[in-house]
């Protein structure tokens, strides 16, 4: 019984990180119809900014986190402006955009490896001061609880932003039909820039959460991205609520599987989930 509770708690924490990635990815994908493979690397950059500012330079933790999120957002925004927008302006095919995003992934990943080595880094905290909560026999650390609550807050905030503001309506219009949105006076390029900033900032938050929870290394970006995209496909690609649901479903299956077999096979299990969904229910749990 306690094992089940513990698995559920672990899945909740992992799921909230996946949900953040999925959220940002779905936001970008539904607005631009572009599968951005560099998205995970941007998440890793967020984590590394906090690691660098807080652990190496001794900056205040909250300031470091804010700068990490903004830094990731700014990086995503610049990639969009310098590379992806140019390609879209040339009516490049989706394969061209995808290959370019692989290039961006490789550049960011190797830049991180040059700056911080390929080793594993974890944002170190004072472990003795950290509180541990016990819920029905399962344990969750304070940091994990904060990660879960922040993820829920970000999800609700983004949901409200998209649903209740003029900005959200404009994004929805671009997602439906970019040309028509332009005709009615929406500056789609500017909106896509903002969407990129928000999406990349959310990725940065997920990267920071990962750096606190399990630690980061330069190659982790790709792994984070795959989890996020698999969750998006499980939930129904482009469906924001479905993506969040998919993230928790994926995390639950993964953690149960990791308990049955062993933690190394976690990624393999996630990939099998992807294959199962693509074959049996390609439009996801909640199709759009």
């Amino acid at each position, binding site marked *: 019984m306690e094992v089940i509770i513990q698995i559920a708690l672990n899945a909740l924490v992992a799921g909230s990180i996946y949900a953040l990635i999925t959220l940002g990815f779905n936001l970008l994908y539904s607005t631009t119809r572009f*599968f951005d*493979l560099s998205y995970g690397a941007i998440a890793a950059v967020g984590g590394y900014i906090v690691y660098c500012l807080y652990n190496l330079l001794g900056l205040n933790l909250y300031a470091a986190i804010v700068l990490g999120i903004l830094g990731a957002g700014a990086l995503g925004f610049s990639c969009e402006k310098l*590379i992806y927008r*140019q*390609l879209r302006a040339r009516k*490049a*095919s*989706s*394969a*061209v*955009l*995808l*290959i*370019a995003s*692989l*290039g*961006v*992934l*490789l*550049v960011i*990943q*190797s*830049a991180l*490896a*040059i700056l911080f080595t390929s080793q594993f880094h974890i944002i170190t905290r004072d472990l003795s001061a950290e509180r541990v909560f016990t819920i029905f026999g399962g344990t969750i650390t304070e940091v994990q609880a904060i990660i879960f609550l922040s993820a829920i807050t970000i999800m609700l905030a983004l949901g409200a932003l998209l649903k209740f503001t003029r900005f959200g309506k404009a994004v929805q219009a671009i997602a439906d039909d970019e040309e028509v949105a332009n005709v009615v006076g929406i500056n789609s390029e500017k909106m896509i820039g903002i969407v990129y900033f928000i999406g990349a900032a959310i990725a940065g938050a997920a990267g920071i959460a990962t750096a606190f929870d399990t630690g980061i290394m330069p*190659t982790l970006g*790709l*792994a984070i991205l*795959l989890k996020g*995209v*698999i969750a998006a*496909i499980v939930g129904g690609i482009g469906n924001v609520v479905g993506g969040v649901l998919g993230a928790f479903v994926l995390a639950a299956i993964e953690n149960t599987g990791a308990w049955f077999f062993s933690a*190394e*096979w976690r*990624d*393999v299990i996630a*990939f099998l989930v*992807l*294959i199962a969904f*693509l*074959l049996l229910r*390609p439009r996801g749990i909640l199709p759009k």
Partner: protein
Amino acid sequence: MEYLVHTVVLVSIYAVQAMSLNLLIGETGLVSVAQAAFAGIGAYAAVVLMTIMGVNFFVASLIGALAAGTVAFIVGIIFLPLRQVYYILGTVGFNVIAWSVFLNWNEVTKGSLGIAGIPRPVVFGYALSENAAFLVLCLVSVACVYGISALITRSSLGRVLHAIREDEDAVAVFGYATTHYKVFIFVVAAFIAGYAGALFASYLSYISPTNYIVPESIFALSIVILGGLGSAHGAIVAAFLLVVLPEVLRFVGFPSELAGHLRLMSYGLILIFFMLYLPKGLFGKFRI
């Protein structure tokens, strides 16, 4: 002289890999980010046969290539019918999983320790332990694969593949089962990549999972993009340029770890640059 031979051996092996990938991207328009995974399957299968059962290199590499082809068949029938972005994502995911299996299947692959003491090929009782002798085998391999790809390109099969590249729906309307053609060429490409992997393993006499990470697949992709889509000789020239480039970095005096990261970064930059300004590559016949 020895150094020159070493370089030409590397160029030949990467050229074989790149020509196999060119059959996919260049001739059929299928971007794949899993060539390193298939090279790894070929390499591990051949190496296990050679080191544990003492099988001759030529038989072992053939079985390794068949193993890569068989896995490609399964991966292909799952992912090739899907929309392009899902298929590409599937290849990326498959490469991550293949690497994870190489790393964790300790009984067979010896995990991150890798397998050492891989023998060189033996021809009529004469072992190709001299690099110059091994070079001959590599050049013969390049010639064979060049011949195979010329044969495929000029045959009626090649014309169907080109038609799929230009407009898959139109080809399907004419009654061609396009998925069968795509699966076939996917398996052929994986077979050749598997052979290249076995060749590489025998040359280095040591393999470990890091030889088969996603960036290595992106490396193969950047060779094809640089050389130009649909051009087998472009792939050979580009393999030469991209193998020599890191050697230059080392000559300039960068330490080898930094040179390794700069190598990957330059491949990423090449992808971005060519997608932006020269999507046809150096000798390409068309753009994706």
